């Protein structure tokens, strides 16, 4: 059955494929970073149309926001253009094709999208679905309830770990305030 959601999904997936091919083929790395931003916006829209707003939220924040800035920081330290490889090399092409075929083969016995008998709907007891409305005072999305509230302490621990790691990295890589360095800089400017 073809309805408007199918059409939107097909259009978004087509644009995703076109963007991915462009990212792989383009040699201007600045433009490639831009296309990864487009890719992550598109995949987040697709996740949204699959009714997974949490994943779409993360993808938009990390993929389109942080990753773009990190890529650009890397680009500022390296070059703007990728080295050109004119020869067609068959071995990597073969490896990529076989890996892709194996991945597609792996999806064949996955349950159909929205199948109520899928293991993912059976295993974490269905009482989450029954009780989360009452527990969370009417929050409609069960996934959000599990991630943000039932697993709240878990998420807080993860955040503490990441914050500690980030603080340690900043403390190690911090640039010391060196008076000699400043004097050198002013001398260079004067010269």
């Amino acid at each position: 059955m073809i309805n408007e959601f199918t059409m939107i999904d097909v259009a978004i997936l087509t644009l995703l494929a076109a963007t991915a091919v462009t990212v792989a083929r383009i040699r201007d790395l600045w433009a490639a970073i831009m296309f990864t931003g487009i890719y992550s916006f598109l995949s987040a829209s697709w996740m949204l149309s699959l009714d997974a707003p949490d994943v779409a939220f993360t993808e938009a924040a990390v993929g389109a926001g942080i990753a773009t800035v990190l890529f650009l920081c890397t680009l500022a330290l390296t070059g703007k253009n990728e080295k050109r490889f004119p020869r067609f090399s068959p071995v990597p092409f073969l490896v990529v094709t076989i890996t892709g075929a194996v991945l597609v083969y792996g999806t064949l016995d996955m349950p159909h999208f929205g199948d109520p008998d899928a293991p993912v709907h059976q295993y974490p007891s269905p009482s989450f679905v029954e009780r989360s409305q009452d527990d969370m005072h009417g929050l409609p999305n069960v996934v959000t309830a599990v991630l943000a509230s039932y697993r709240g302490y878990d998420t807080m621990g993860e955040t503490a770990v990441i914050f500690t790691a980030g603080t340690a990295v900043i403390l190690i890589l911090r640039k010391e305030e060196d008076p000699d360095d400043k004097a050198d800089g002013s001398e260079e400017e004067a010269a």
Partner: protein
Amino acid sequence: MVEAAPMLVAAAEAVAALGGSRQTEWMCAVTAMAILVTMTLALVRAMLGPTVFDRVLALNMFGTKTVLLICVVDFLLNRNDFLDLALLYSLMNFIGMVALLRFTEYGSFGGDRIR
């Protein structure tokens, strides 16, 4: 303002009568298709774009169209919680754009290292 008020009420009633009807669905579906066509055109411009600024404009337009598409899908599904996501997307689009343009202008992010 006094004369406009009855018209506003009538318009609100008309919108409420349309809500969730077949016509609204079709309107939203056609709008979504138009937005997707615009996204395709922006993507083509970003791929062809000879200068940096063609690409920046195309990317910015692409992000705006993503926000619009989310809003349309929101009305199509009759869920109001996607509109917050549309806000997040426009913020992300802005941050990415500022970062890209700053890099294009200065070639680096460490402002004190530029000589």
